[in-house]
Structure formats: structure tokens, C-alpha cells
């Protein structure tokens, strides 16, 4: 029977070289940073057709990286089990 993934192992920094799951955890944190930066970038007050197009594209982009974050969250568990 396979052991459940250790949350502590996934989140506690190690003194040794990080494992694969720790790299994926770090990637998830970086993706959160990117989502936050994109949210701030969407708060553009400029009124013009070009700005409207920009806001539309950015909304789509944010939805895509939110989906990426969900997928990466799930992947983190898979990697923790596999590694």
C-alpha cells in the first residue's frame, strides 16, 4: 500500500537539494505571483478601443493561468506520490 503524500515534506524547505515535488510547489507559488501581477495589470483606467481589446485579452489570459494553477495543484500531488 502506497503511503499518503506528506504535506510537511511538500512545504518544508530542505537543507539538501529540493525534490521534484518541492520544485512543483515552488512553481505553484510563482504561478500565484503571476496571477496576482496579471490581476493588477488588468486595473488599467485608460479608456480607448485599444485598451478595451487589451482588457479582453487579459481577462482570457487570466482565466487560462487560473486553469493552469488548478492543473498544477493536482500535479503536485501526483509528483509527490511518484517521487
Amino acid at each position, binding site marked *: 500500500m502506497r503511503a499518503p503524500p506528506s504535506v510537511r515534506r511538500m512545504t518544508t524547505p530542505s537543507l539538501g537539494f529540493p*525534490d*521534484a*515535488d518541492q*520544485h*512543483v510547489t*515552488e*512553481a*505553484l507559488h*510563482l*504561478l500565484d*505571483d*503571476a*496571477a496576482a*501581477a*496579471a490581476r*493588477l*495589470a*488588468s*486595473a*488599467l*483606467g*485608460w479608456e*480607448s*478601443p*485599444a*485598451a478595451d*481589446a*487589451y482588457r479582453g*485579452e*487579459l481577462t482570457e*489570459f487570466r482565466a*487560462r*493561468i487560473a486553469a*493552469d494553477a488548478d*492543473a*498544477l495543484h493536482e*500535479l503536485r500531488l*501526483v*509528483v509527490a*506520490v*511518484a*517521487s
Partner: protein
Amino acid sequence: MSITAGRGPDPIDTLAIVGGRSIARVDAQAVALAASRLDDAAASLRAASYRCAVAANLLEDAMWAPAPFAAPVSTGSAARRRAAARVVDTAQRLAERADTCDGLSTRIRRVAGLYTYSESAAERVLGALVAAGSGVVTLETKVLTRSTATGPVVLAGAAAGAALAYGMLPRPSADDVARLTRDAAPFTDEAIAGLAFGVAVGSPLRSGFDTGVTGGARVLSSIVHQFLPVSTVQVLPVPDATARPSWAGTPSGTVAEALARTADLYPWGSGILGRPAPGLPEATLAVEQVEHDDGTTSWTVLIPGTQSPIPPDHPFDAVTDIDLMAHEAADVTAAVELALAKAGARPDEPVVLVGHSLGGIAAMALASSGDFRRRHRLGGVVTAGSPTATFTAPRGVPVLHLENDEELVSQLDGRTSTENPATRDRVTVGRTLAASGAAPDRETSGSVIRAHGMSTHLRTLELAREAGSAPVATVVGRIDALLDGERADSRFFTAARTFEVDGPVVLAPGDLSPSSARTVR
């Protein structure tokens, strides 16, 4: 493991727009802040992609063992393999997201007129080497032709050219030519600057101690005119029996239509899909008198480009190209002034000059001429595929240049599109066709003729409008206002050149040009 985005860039992202008026200061600050947030997001995404790539490597490493000790494939290693594959996919996707984010940042800066262009250090070093190399080669050629008899050198060159033309030497394939065009395009400006430097330094008196492209062209112009007889230019109305384009009698209305009409003036037509060739004679230029609803009148002059390489009986040839690049009096500029005078343009009525290739250089030569501006009120200038960076444009006059890297013509001023003079009124829209993700653009990038054609320049303008560029929208809007009106009267003239065989003419600064009666600068 290399993680890169797979798709080519959107054609809009290959645009380079310099000059023009940016948006209001408060909006500009907001755009700059938003774009920097996107830069942060792109950096985070790229770092996340890197972390995923490292994780995938670690998972793959864990499966590896030297052959003698390798265990049979276990459930654990299969799970690792599947996990590694999913992590690699994620890394790839995150890299693509980072590229998208960079593209959004660039695009919003570009449309707001805030983007700044710069070459990488490697490009600068390579460019400097190309410039220095071409300059040295030109100087050495000059020394060689002086120290030896010029005749054998010229004969050898002519023999090699003839052998190539008649198939005695292996001709490069179409693919090779396309590849060469794409590879040479980024360094054409440096090569031309180097060549011009070599020519100008080799003949300092002829170049007027100007080591730039203008000085080099001045040397060539001086040499060419040593062998040519005196010429005069006449402008004659196109005979009534000649077929007129379908658009005759209507105002151009927009910059795009004015450019398309300029290309229609070539005897072989514009090459634009859906625009049949009107069948006008060689060396035709058009003057439109536009009546506006407020009772005012403006004029639009459409000037096509080079139609013959050697001096024929009209001035749209390579000699005029050299004269214009040398900032000397040229027959085409004289023809434009004569056509405007014959059409009845008054000094207080604004004139918009629209030119392709040679026509664009002539338009900028007139725009920079104080004499022309004393005779006519300049309303705007539009050029497509013209090397115009050496000319100055008057303040307050909207000027639009359309260029691309692969046409190898607009760089004959020794500068790339992004190095063109950029002011609040002067906008250059450049494009790197080879970098575009669209297949038609990439195909066009391998042919100098297609890249230089009006269709390509119109697509560049369309992309700039589609991108919502504020500088382009402003300058085009100001010119459109003069091109559009209630009604228009179109007149067509052919420019004819007559040679007088009394003897060679040598143009020198201070002399009067025999064709245009302008003082040579």
C-alpha cells in the same frame, strides 16, 4: 531540456512603430504601470516553467540506474514516467503563457506609443563589423581601381555578370535567394552605411566631406552626371484617349486608398488583388484637387517609384534615385512642381504628397525643401518603401513612413525603421516579415520584389490600425482629413526628359540645375 513556446508571433507583434504623439500623460503612466505588471507576471511564469522543467528532470533521473543494476520496470517507475511527462507538458505550457504575457505587454506599450526599440549587444557588434567591412572593401576597391587600370576591373565585372546572366555560372536557387534575403535583411542598413562611408572618404571633395549616405550618394551622382548630357523635364497631360482609372474624379479619402492609387500609376498596375491595371503610360503622376464641404481646397499628389534602371526618356530611373539620395536637384521633384503649377494649386492650399519608393524619396525631398514650402502649403507626407531618414520634415506636418526589413530599399538611407527620425508629427511603421507567424508574411519575406510591393505596405498599415496604435491613428487621421472631400478632380501627367547633346554637365554646389533651375545644395 529546452522549453520554448511553439507558435510563431502574431503579425501585429512584428510591428515597430516610432515617433508620433503618445496618449495623455496620466493614461501613459497607467499603461506603463500595467505593462510593468505584465513583465512581472511573465518573469514569474518563466521561473515557474523552469521549476517544472527541473522537477521533470529529477523524476527522470530517479528512474535511471546503470545497466547491470537496473531493476525490471516497476509500477513506481511507470508512475514517475507519467508524472514526468505531465510536468514537461506543464513547463511547455507555462513558457507559452510567459510569451503571451510578454506579447500583451509589448502590444499595450506599442499602441500607447511608449515602446522603445533597441538592438541587442550582439546585433550592435555584428552590425558594426558589417559596416566596417563594407567600408574597407569599398575603399580597397577604390585604391585598386586607382592603382591599376580601371578598364580590366570593369571588364572582369561585366564578364562575370554576363556569365551569370547567361547561365555559364551556377545560378542560386529560389530557396537560396530567399534565405539570403532573410539573412541579409537585418544588416542592410549597416552595409549601406559602410559602403557610403567608403565611397565618401574615397572622394572627399565630391562628397563635400560628408561621410554619410548623402555624401556617398553625392559622389555617385557627380560621377553619373559627368557622363550624361544636360536634360530638361517637361510635364504633359495624359492624352484624353488614354484610359483613366475607375477612381478618377473621386477623392482618395484615406491614406490606404491614396497609396493603392499611387501603385495603380505603374504601367504594369499595383499588383494588389482586385485592382486591375488601368494601363497608364510610363512616368505618370496624378494630382487630385479635393473640394471640402467647408469650401476649402486641398491637393493630393501621387508619385510612383522607379520604372527603369538606366536613363530613359522619363525621370523615374536610377539616376533620379541617386540624385534624390544625394539631396541634389532631381527631375522628379521638378516634375511634381510643374504638375502642381499646371493643375492650378495656389500657395495657400494644402498639398499632401504620397509616394512609393523613389516617389516617397521625392516627396520627402520636396517636404524638406524651403523653396517648395514657400510655393505650397505642405499638408502631409506619406511614403511607402522609401529611404527617407536623411531628410528632415517640417514641424507640424503629419508624416507617415511605411517600411519593412526584407524589401532592402527603405534601409538604403543606412538606417533601420526604428532609427528613422521620430518626432511628434513623424511616424514610421516598420515590420520584420520573416518574424511573423503568418505564412503569407514569411513567404513574402523571401522576395525583395514582393516585400517592396504596395500590397505588403498596405498590410503593414492595416496591422498598425488593427493594433490600435495611438501615434499611427493620430497621424493618419490628420492626413485623411485632407484626402477626403465632397468631390475631386483628378489630373494625370506624364513626365518627359529630354537630353541636350551639347556636352557633359557637371553639377557642383552653387550651380543651377539645368532641369529644375533649383540651386544645387
